[in-house]
């Protein structure tokens, strides 16, 4: 018994003596191990692109792991401000208030445009009265305190039937962008719609109701083309100027005002780590082929070059 106590005592002393407190190296795996890890957080819209590129990257660089968290653009920026992540996925540009907080914490970042999304307004395929809408008409339907309850409220020649509206909930960057572009103010929207954080719910909702209308990212329309009809949007008062979202119109920038750029924000301090540098270079290089596969629209060659230049100058610094 006393011998066992002795052995345990010695083991305990050894364990305590073997404990050292040390600073952690960014990129090291917490438990210990020989792989490097890049931390990515942020928008659910950008996640499919980053995940696709990360998976391809891990095949080539087998000692690097790139897990992705999905918490939304705003939370992603908060994590970037706190210095907890290397890359933030974002479906909107960083706000001035967020920039200031970065400065306060001594966090420098580089903004890289990586793809374009066209927010798509969709209706039921049997809807034969709407093929295009002006921004003013959309605003009339979606603005706060909207008086539109029936289709005939928008245009008297349309059916005298209740309109049902589906859209993203307010935690989403899609919601921020749509309300800003259509209603002129971030967060302003009619009380008369069914919000959902799950874009598949919106797709199912619109596909199941002849008198429904909804909006979401282009990826969700492109995966549901047979179930939904997309509406062309005219930035002017004239319906003849309406443009439907297609990869060509979104890339060319003629689909306005609902085209939006997607970004990644890379912490500059992390770029000194070779695995982060490799990953971002891969993202803007070979990885760009994954943008279309994820259902979004790839940048034009000139825009890719602009992003690459911004990245290389940040690395060189």
């Amino acid at each position, binding site marked *: 018994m006393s011998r066992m106590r002795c052995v345990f005592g010695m083991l305990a002393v050894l364990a305590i003596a*073997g404990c050292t407190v*040390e600073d*952690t190296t960014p990129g090291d795996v*917490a438990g*210990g191990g020989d792989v490097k890890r890049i931390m990515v957080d942020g928008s659910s819209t950008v996640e499919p692109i980053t995940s696709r590129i990360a*998976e391809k990257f891990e095949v080539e660089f087998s000692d690097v792991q790139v*897990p992705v968290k999905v*918490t939304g653009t705003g939370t992603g920026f908060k994590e970037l401000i706190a210095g907890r992540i290397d890359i933030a996925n974002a479906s909107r540009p960083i706000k001035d208030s967020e920039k200031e907080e970065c400065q306060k914490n001594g966090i420098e970042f580089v903004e890289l445009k990586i793809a374009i999304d066209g927010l798509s307004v969709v209706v039921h395929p049997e809807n034969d009265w709407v093929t295009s809408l002006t921004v003013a008409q959309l605003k009339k339907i979606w603005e706060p305190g909207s008086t539109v309850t029936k289709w005939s409220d928008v245009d008297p020649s349309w059916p005298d039937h209740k309109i049902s509206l589906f859209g993203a909930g307010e935690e989403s960057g899609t919601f921020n962008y749509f309300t800003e572009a259509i209603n002129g103010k971030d967060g302003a929207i009619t009380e008369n719609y069914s919000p959902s954080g799950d874009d*598949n719910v919106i797709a199912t909702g619109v596909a199941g109701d002849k008198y429904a209308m909804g909006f979401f990212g282009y990826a969700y329309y492109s*995966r549901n083309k047979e179930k939904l009809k997309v509406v062309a949007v005219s930035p002017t008062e004239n319906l003849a100027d309406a443009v439907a979202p297609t990869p060509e119109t979104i890339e060319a920038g003629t689909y306005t005002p609902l085209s939006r750029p997607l970004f990644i924000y890379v912490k500059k301090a992390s770029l000194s780590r070779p695995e982060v540098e490799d990953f971002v270079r891969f993202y803007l290089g070979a990885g760009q082929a994954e943008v279309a596969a994820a259902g979004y629209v790839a940048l034009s060659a000139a825009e890719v070059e602009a992003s690459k230049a911004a990245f290389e100058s940040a690395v060189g610094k």
Partner: protein
Amino acid sequence: MSTPPLSVTPQPSDVQSLKSVNFISGSDSTIRRRLFLSRVFAWCCRIATYSALAALVALLASIIVNCLGRLNLSFITSVNSVDPAEAGILAGLWGSFWLISLTTLMSVPLGIGSAVYLEEYAKDTWLTRVIKVNLSNLAGVPSIVYGMLGLTVFVRMFDLFGSSAAKSKAINLLGIVKIPLPLGDIILAGALTMTLVILPIIIIASQEALRAVPSSIRTASLALGATRWQTIRHQVLPAAMPGISTGVILAVSRAIGDTAPLIMIGALTVARFCPAGIDSPVKLLTEPQRILQAPMDQFTAMPIEIFHWAKQPGDDFSPVAASGIVVLLLVLSVFNGFAVWIRYRTSRGLKW
């Protein structure tokens, strides 16, 4: 606790008296009406049962039909992918395994210990009464609230070690494992949070089980000269074991399916690695040092992966999500089967 069933065999005299009461107390029409009402009530109860069952069967059927195209061995031996034909649940399966193992390891001794103290030792003071009432309240708190608590206390540790990950420290234990400070979004932090979620449930279930042990057993044991500890160890705990183990396993089953606190503490959404690189049970034996490293690694879990697949655009990933649900349900049934087995084993040993 199983009590011997009461004798319910009707005696002939009982039946006769019942019949006579029926026939004396009313005319033919009132009897018919009462019998009719009785039948209506029976049908209402039947409909209630079968409608619940029908919903369950419909749900299971749709999931199983949906998973047929994807569920095979490769689904549980491969990690997540953007290609639905290759996406598997291995990373989530191991993440959930570590999470649940650690949660059980921490919550069971704490839970049963607290229950034994509250039922067997604690005097009935205002403090113990406050604790007992609040245990039921805590069991009803939504798990996301515990997630927020876990984020502050375990993941960030009140920012005591600096709020930025770049400046954080780690305890290096004999060069084998590094324990980060603050913990961050690692399995250990998740397991501590999950322990908080299920601890009240385990304590309440254990209390009920201990309370169901007849006090005559305790008095008899003490009267024979046994100490309090001997009484608890040899009489009370074995008698309460069936109830305690059922409560523990039901609580753990709840923890397996719970997503909200994990999302809150920052579990990974998309990860293609298993904690500490342990991707098969063989590695547990061949590389035992990784067993210490795994709790300190980041992780994803089965319900998080299922949720992620269900949110993918289009229908491509719905067979994958359905397969994930089936795997989760299988794991849950194994746990529940285990509960039944333990209940059977422990209650068989009871002699009195």
